[in-house]
């Protein structure tokens, strides 16, 4: 499924808002003003609302249902999308490792932040990279540390 969009350069607020929303949904940028998501009910609905927002901000947007003619290019797009979430997982893993050195109070707070972050990343992870398991494991290790009885 593709969202084709065009927004005026100015004002820049709707542009950056759209960019943030696309980033959160985990779309794969295909070209300038063209971005893709795997087709399912949730993604379709979210892209349709974004298209509506673009129109309300004075731009143009349309939703397309399509598939790549080349399997190789499809794999390329999928691995590009996987690399984006892999980078997010790596940041999370680094944070989880750093949190092991934190005192118990802050460590507990970091854990709940990382759990939320993990949920957010997983929601946009359509082509799970190996980092997904590692991130899950890093958070679970932190859980074990937090649950360890004091003394």
């Amino acid at each position, binding site marked *: 499924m593709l969202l084709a969009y065009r927004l005026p350069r100015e004002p820049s607020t709707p542009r950056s808002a759209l960019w943030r*929303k696309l980033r*959160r949904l985990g779309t794969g940028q295909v070209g300038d003003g063209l971005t893709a998501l795997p087709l399912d*009910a*949730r993604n379709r*609905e979210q892209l*349709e*609302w974004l*298209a*509506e*927002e673009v129109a*309300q901000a004075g731009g143009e947007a349309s939703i397309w249902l399509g598939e790549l003619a080349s399997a190789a290019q499809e794999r390329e797009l999928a691995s590009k999308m996987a690399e984006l979430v892999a980078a997010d997982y790596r940041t999370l893993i680094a944070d989880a490792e750093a949190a092991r050195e934190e005192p118990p109070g802050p460590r507990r707070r970091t854990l709940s932040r990382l759990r939320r972050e993990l*949920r957010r990343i997983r*929601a946009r992870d359509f082509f799970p990279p190996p980092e997904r398991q590692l991130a899950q494991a890093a958070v679970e290790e932190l859980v074990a540390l937090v649950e360890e009885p004091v003394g």
Partner: protein
Amino acid sequence: MRWATRRHCHVDRAGCAWLIQRFLDPEPEFVFVDDPDEVPADATPFDMRGAELSHHGGDCSFETFLRQYELADPVLWEIAKIVHEADLANERYDAPEAPGLDVLLRGLSMIRDDEELLALSGPLFDGLYEYRKRALLLGREPA
């Protein structure tokens, strides 16, 4: 009155349908369509592209209903926060119930058609309303 919305209802549409029946129109008739072009002339469309009762300025349709019909009930605004986060998950509000409500309604939509879904989600929202009302009166979570 007739009301039209998109087929395969999820949380925002289910919430709006409940809101309509409980607060605006005790005997509503719902029409489900695939495309905005299919909305019957005598029906009021909601939660679809181009409709007045839809997403606006970052609000989900449930919030738009509350604003349009000036429903100032604070309990409804508590539910609006949950519906917003279940629908959009953009962390505008802190609504820990939202991921649960999202999953429950999405699951129901997998095994029931739209009429049955609304028949089941109605009492769910009634319960949510009662719970949030008691929480507001008590100033803490009721049990």
